[in-house]
């Protein structure tokens, strides 16, 4: 479902340029659970952002579900953000002014779902994550692990085809990390959601079924 062909990314720095990604070829099939690993500054986050249409490659082609992303207009990309792609961030990135319930509901608002549909979907997710009791709390009233649960709940509530997670457990201690990773595993197994995560942790990588090593902008092996 995801196909990268000769993707490069560089930023201008002074008179030269800083190359982040070089000629990356990568195919991710539906239902995979991929872990992208590599040292700091190797370009893993940039790769993930390109996969998530948050950044544009400097060169190369990107096909999402067989469609060329560079040919898509703004509207189509927004459609993908609303329906096909879910994000999970290291720093959770919940909206501080909204409650747990409202945070989870927001993607559905952008999808223009009716009130009753939104209600039932959010209720399902809350139920599944055992967070019904916390639905009226604000993010700063939750622990990091709980916040990340909300982040994941928000990512899956719109039933995306793929979840892109950028070091989802980076800010959590190991017990919490385990819960989150098992949740990803479950989403991958039961819901058949494709998952791409960036991680430093070998342990986390074992939850996936493929590991991509990246170093100095090149995919290894």
């Amino acid at each position: 479902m995801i196909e990268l062909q000769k993707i490069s990314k560089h930023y201008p720095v002074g008179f030269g340029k800083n190359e982040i990604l070089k000629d990356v070829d990568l195919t991710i099939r539906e239902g995979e659970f991929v872990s992208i690993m590599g040292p700091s500054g190797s370009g893993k986050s940039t790769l993930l952002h390109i996969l998530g249409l948050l950044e544009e490659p400097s060169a190369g082609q990107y096909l999402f579900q067989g469609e060329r992303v560079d040919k898509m207009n703004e509207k189509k990309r927004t459609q993908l953000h609303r329906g096909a792609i879910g994000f999970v961030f290291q720093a959770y990135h919940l909206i501080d002014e909204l409650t747990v319930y409202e945070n989870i509901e927001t993607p559905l608002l952008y999808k223009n779902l009716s009130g009753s549909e939104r209600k039932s979907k959010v209720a399902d997710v809350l139920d599944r994550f055992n967070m019904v009791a916390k639905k009226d709390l604000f993010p700063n009233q939750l622990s990091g692990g709980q916040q990340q649960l909300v982040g994941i709940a928000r990512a899956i509530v719109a039933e995306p085809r793929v979840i892109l997670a950028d070091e989802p457990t980076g800010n959590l201690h190991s017990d919490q990390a385990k819960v989150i990773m098992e949740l990803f595993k479950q989403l991958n197994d039961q819901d058949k959601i494709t998952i791409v995560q960036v991680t430093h942790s070998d342990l986390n990588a074992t939850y996936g079924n493929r590991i991509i090593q990246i170093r100095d902008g090149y995919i290894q092996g």
Partner: protein
Amino acid sequence: MLRNYFLVAIRNIWRNKVFSLLNIMGLVTGISAALVVYLVVFYESGFNKAVADKDRIFRVVSTISFSGDSIKNNGVPVPVITVAKENVPQVEKAVDFFINNTTARITVEGKDFKNKEDVIFADKGYMDMLGYEWLGGDAATALSQPLSVVLTQERARVYFPNTPVAQVLGKQVLYDDSIRVTVTGVVKDLAYDTDFWFREMISLPTLQTNATLKEIYLGDNWQSISSSTQLLVKLRPAARPQDAIAILDKYISQHDTKDFTTELSLHPLSDLHFDTGFEAYRRTASRKQLDILSMIAVALLGLAVINFVNLTTAQASRRAKETGIRKAIGGTTGQLIKQFLGETMILTLLAAVLALLLAPLLIVSFHAFLPDDLPVAQLYTAPVLSFLFLLAAGVALIAGIYPAYVLSRFQPVVVLKSNTGHRGGKVWVRQTLTAVQFTVAQFFVIATLIVGKQINFSLNKDLGFRKNAILSVNTPRRDPDQSKRRQLEARVASLPEVDMVSLSANTPVISGTESTILKYNNGRQEVDKTVEVRYGDSNYLPLYQLRLLAGRNIATTDSVREWLLNEKAVAAFGFKRPQDAIGQVIEGHPVVGVVANFSAASVRSEIPAMAIGSEALKRHRVLHVRLRSPGEDGVVWKNAIAGIEKAWKDIYPREEFSYEFLDKTVANMYRQEQRMSNLLNWCAGLAIFISILGLLGLVIFTTDQRTKEIGIRKVLGATVWQVVRMLTTDFMKPVLVAFLLAIPLSWWVMSQWLQSFVYRTGLTWWVFAAGGVIMVLMALGAMSLKTVRAALSNPVHTLKTE
């Protein structure tokens, strides 16, 4: 979706209490100023709108030109009335009425009332044109007979309290102890805003029954125009006003002479309330003043908008994360702009509601510049409220669009990648806006100072005569008995507290003019000069301490007339030196002395050529009294006034006693400037207030951002003063730029304003400097609220959190 936006908006406003408060305070000030101004404009432009066929109704007014001068008069020569009624085919209906400005006393059932100048002589045509509703009496005949009067309900209640309308009919009202009229009708007071505020309509035929009235009101002279002679015409539907005027002019031009011409014009009813040189009846509104008020409101609103833009974009980084997240989960830029605009809208609506509560307070503060009869309750009527709503929406749009653009522009990658702060919008935009804000505030400050300086100059200018401790008492104007006045003069002169008394005509300085044309034959030709005149007795000159340059003072005599000229008049009649004028005969009477120039009016006009005449004493109706020094607590003056009043009561038992101090009269001439000054004070205050709020907001924000930096600097050894200076310098730049911009702006505007004064204060450099210093001190003071505290904070606390 809306609910979601709304919640975020409310929670954001609540979370950033300080900034929301700063924003709302600025907006409330701006919006309530705009609201009050709108109320005034709405009220003033609504006058006479409800009169039926108002577009076809005109008032006929006159412009008289004689010997180079022209005077506008809102009346017409009496013969024009007949012409308008009979000879002008364009006129469908002509209505004449006469304002009763001679009646001094109205007596009803033994009680005396004063004429409030709302008594007119009118007929059925007048009542029909304005659409009165009759509560009693017969509309067709009530004003057809002489010696009948129609009262409005309000007036009827004053004259006949607790009497039903049916019983008011048939009652009698006595004017000036001589004209007894019967109430033949009672009408409802006009329910709409109108200049036709008259409350007592005496039947027109009454004028024919009394020789005195006939002489005063119905003079048959084409050249004599009284503003009491009012003529309204309703034109036929398709008639053109200029055609009607052409016919009227044909008649009146037959009576023009070489140096006296009268021109008539039609003054549309819609213009009646506004100053076009022709007075409305009670109060004339100034379009220029409304324009000034509107500009001020726009300026204050602009300042509030700038605050909003600055404060919102400065803290944009706090919202950047939200923008990033929303975009990553499917929000579009358009949706985000709508969301942020919505937030602005909520804030502005909140401010609008508060403005509605604040507006009455503002009306009280601005009252000197607003019409006295402004109905405050109209604030809460549909047109004003809908204006308020539109205004709030408009302000929200203008204030919100740039911040919304800035906030929604953040790219998710940039925001979500790192946790460092993000700059919202360009810093130079905020600095420019702040500079604009302070330019406006600075302008108001300098303008206030200059207007104050001019007022001070006007009041303290050497007038050329003494104005302290002098009061004047007007004796009853219509009383022909001069011996009573002499009696009063003698009684007052004998009071121990009184220094000197003069029974004369006007005071040296009057508001308005009293002029005449004097002829002088210099042997070769006759010289005609328009000269400002005063009439006095022999005490007039010493009492006012006018300076005699040549010759002698005039003598008090009943029959002989003598002239004193001022220096200007000496030059105007062509004499080289004051001595040359002595003994010359002007208008049949000799010049006996020359006095130094002295002010005859306000500093707006030049000192004119003047003559003081010792005319026959019948013109001498004003008692001028110079008092001795006021003594402890002004007790001497109090006694003096009590003494004068007692003498008055003995001589004029039924007349009201009143007096005015001359320095007060002089001060009153500058009431307009005082009002201007008052308004400017408020504007300057509000402008400073709003601008300082904005500055404070920016300072609070940046200082909070630099908390860590301040801590590190202090650890490295920076003093409190150094930290304060560091935090302050950046913000003083726009204030100083504003000062530099405001100098030429205020110099230009204020020198325009000063042009209206012949004698004016200079635009000295220190006024501008003082304005700048005031502004800088205000800005520094406000900023120190935050910066000093930040600089004093213990670095241990600020650095520990990291």
